[in-house]
C-alpha cells in the first residue's frame, strides 16, 4: 500500500464538483468540496435536505451514474486517485477500503437473498475464500453487531427482520472486510428513537474498536456533538463551515450554521421553540452568483451578492465561507 505514514491523510478531497443533467438543465449538486480525513477520524456532515451530503458520499465511492453526472476534482483514498483508476480497481476498493451504510436498510438489501448470503458474498468477492468459510465469518460479524440468535438470522431474509436488526445486518455487511473508511448516510433516520440510539452507540463502539475513519451524515446535531471529531456544514453543495465539533457547534461562524443550530432541537435545547430557517434552499440549476445563502441570510449585504465568498481560515482546521467570518480578535460586534 502506498503512503501509510501516520501523517498522510486516509482521504483527501480537493475541488470536488458534481453536476447532473436534468430535464430542467444542469443541476450543480456539489460546487467545490475540499477536506482531508485522517485514519480513525469521525467527520459529521450536517446540512438541510438537498445540500449535497449523499451526493458527496457517493462521489467518494465513484457510485454516481456515469452517464448523467459530470464529476471533477480529485479524491485520493490511501493515495490512490479514485477517478483515475480503472473500474476494476475501483470494484476492489469498494466494500474493502471504503464501504457504505445506507439510510434505509430495507431498500439497500437485496430482498431475495438471505442476510448471510449477502455478507458472505462480499467476503468471497474481496478475499476469495470458500463460501462456507465466508458464511462462518458472516456469523461472527452478526454476533459482533449484537444481533441475537445470529445463527438463525444468517438464514433470514431482510423482510423477516425488524428495522433495527436490518440496520445492524447492513453494518455487519459494510464492516465485513474491515474497511479503513466507513460512509454512513443517515443510518438511523428510518428507525425508532430508541433503536436510533442503540445503532449509534454500536457504530461508535465499532469505530473505536476497529479504528475506522467514518463520515457520518446526520440531521441530528446532538448526534454530531456526541460522535464527531470534526463537523462540516454543507449548503448548496459546498462546505460552508468546518471545524472540530466543539468549535462548530458551540461557536458557529456561518449564519447558516447558526440558523441550523437554532432550528434543531438537540440535547440541551430541548423545550425551546423551534425556529426554522426562513426561505428555501437555492435552485441548483440556477445558483445565485454570490453567496448561495445570501437570499436567506439576515446579515446579507452588497458584498455577499457580488461574488461567492472564499474560504476564510480562522485557525488551522477551522474554516467558514462567509464574508463576516474574521480571525477572532478582529471580529466586530
Amino acid at each position, binding site marked *: 500500500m502506498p503512503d501509510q505514514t501516520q501523517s498522510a491523510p486516509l482521504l483527501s478531497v480537493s475541488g470536488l464538483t458534481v453536476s447532473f443533467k436534468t430535464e430542467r438543465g444542469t443541476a450543480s449538486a456539489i460546487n467545490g468540496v475540499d477536506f482531508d480525513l485522517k485514519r480513525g477520524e469521525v467527520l459529521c456532515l450536517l446540512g438541510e435536505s438537498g445540500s449535497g451530503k449523499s451526493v458527496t458520499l457517493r462521489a467518494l*465511492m465513484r457510485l454516481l451514474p456515469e452517464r448523467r453526472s459530470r464529476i471533477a476534482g480529485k479524491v485520493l483514498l490511501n493515495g490512490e486517485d479514485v477517478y483515475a483508476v480503472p473500474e476494476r480497481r475501483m470494484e476492489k476498493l*469498494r466494500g474493502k477500503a471504503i464501504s457504505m451504510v445506507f439510510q434505509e436498510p430495507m*431498500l439497500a438489501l437485496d430482498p431475495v437473498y438471505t442476510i448471510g448470503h449477502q455478507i458472505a458474498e462480499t467476503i468471497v468477492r474481496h478475499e476469495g475464500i470458500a463460501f462456507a468459510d465466508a458464511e462462518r465469518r458472516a456469523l461472527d460479524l452478526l454476533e459482533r453487531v449484537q444481533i441475537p440468535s445470529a445463527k438463525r438470522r444468517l438464514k433470514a431474509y431482510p423482510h423477516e427482520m425488524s428495522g433495527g436488526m436490518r440496520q445492524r445486518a447492513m453494518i455487519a455487511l459494510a464492516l465485513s472486510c474491515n474497511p479503513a473508511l466507513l460512509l454512513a448516510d443517515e443510518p438511523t433516520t428510518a428507525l425508532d428513537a430508541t433503536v436510533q440510539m442503540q445503532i449509534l452507540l454500536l457504530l461508535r463502539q465499532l469505530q473505536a474498536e476497529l479504528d475506522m475513519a467514518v463520515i457520518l451524515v446526520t440531521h441530528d446535531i446532538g448526534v454530531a456533538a456526541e460522535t464527531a471529531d470534526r463537523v462540516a456544514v454543507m449548503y448548496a453543495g459546498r462546505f460552508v463551515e468546518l471545524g472540530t465539533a466543539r468549535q462548530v457547534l458551540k461557536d458557529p461562524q456561518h449564519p447558516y450554521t447558526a440558523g441550523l443550530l437554532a432550528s434543531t432541537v438537540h440535547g440541551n435545547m430541548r423545550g425551546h421553540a423551534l425556529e426554522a430557517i426562513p426561505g428555501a434552499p437555492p435552485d441548483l440549476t440556477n445558483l445565485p452568483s454570490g453567496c448561495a445563502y445570501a437570499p436567506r441570510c439576515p446579515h446579507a449585504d452588497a458584498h455577499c451578492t457580488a461574488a461567492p465568498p472564499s474560504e476564510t481560515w480562522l485557525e488551522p482546521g477551522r474554516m467558514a465561507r462567509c464574508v463576516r467570518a474574521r480571525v477572532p480578535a478582529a471580529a466586530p460586534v
Partner: protein
Amino acid sequence: MFAYILRRILYIVPIALGVTLLVFALVHIAPGDPLNAVVGPDAPAEVVEQLRRSYGFDQPLPVQYVIYLGHVLSGDLGQSVATGRPVIADLGRALGNTLILSVGAAIVGFTSGILLGALAGWHRGGFIDRLATLLTLIGVSVPHYWLGMVLVIVMAVELNLLPAMGMAPGGATGWGFTGAHLAHAVLPVLTMSVIPMGIVARSVRATVAEVLQQEFVQALRAKGLGRGPVLRHVVRNVAPTVVSVLGLQFGYLLGGSILIETVFSWPGTGFLLNEAIFKRDLPLLQGTILMLGLFFVLLNLLVDIAQAALDPRMRRS
C-alpha cells in the same frame, strides 16, 4: 414452503369446481334449446321428450350438475353430437397438436422477448431500448392472422420455401419429429410467437428497469460487486414477475388461436372450438372449454409455486 404449496393446492379445489359449474351452466346459458342441434326443429314432440330424458335434461339443475360432475371426474366428457365420437378422444388429439405449436411459440417468443426486454431495460433510454420498443410495439399491434397470411404468401406461395397448410405432407395428421413435420410447424409457430414476444419483452423491460432503479443495486456496487454479479442479483429479482407473465402467456398459447389454426389448417384446440361453435356441438364445446379452463387453473398453480420458490416474500401466510 411445503405448507405453502399444500395450501395453494387446496385452494385449487374450489376454483376447479367453479370452472366445472361455469361450463355446466354454459348449456343452459347458450341461447336456444340444447337439443336443437341433435334433432331437427320439426321432430315429433315425443322423440324430443325421450331425448330430453336420455340426456337427463328433465332432472332439476343441481341433480344434473352432480351427474355432470360425476362424469367429468370419471373422465367422461360425453360424445360429440356431430361425429358421435367421445369428446375426450378428439380433445386429446387437438390439445396435443396445439401443444406442439404452443411449446414452439413459447420457446421462440419467450427467449426473444426476454432477451429484447432485458437489453432494453438494461440500456434504458438508449438506442437499443428504442429499437426494442419499436419491435415490441409492432409485435403486439400487428394482427397475427394478417401476419400469418403474409407469411404464407411470401414464404409458401412466392418463395415456395415452407409448407403453409396442415401438420404433415398430404394433409396427414399426427406428429413426428421429421423434417417435414418441423417444416409444417415453422410458419404457424413464428406467427403465434409474435404476440407473446411483444408482451414478454415489454414486461421484462419494465421489470428490469424498475429493479435497476432500486437502491440495493447501488448497494451491491458499493460492496464491490462487478457487472456480472450485479446482473445475477437483478435476474433473481426480475424472475418472479417474469415467471408469472410467462405462465399467463403460455396459458393463452395453450388455448390455441382460432384464427391462426384456421389460417394454417392446424387441427388444434382453436380449430376444434371453431368447429364446435359452428356446429352447435355443445358436448364438444363444453369439454374443450372445461379442459382449457382446468389447464389454466393448473398453470396458475405452477406459477404461484414457482414465484414462491423464487421470492421469499411471497411465502408468507
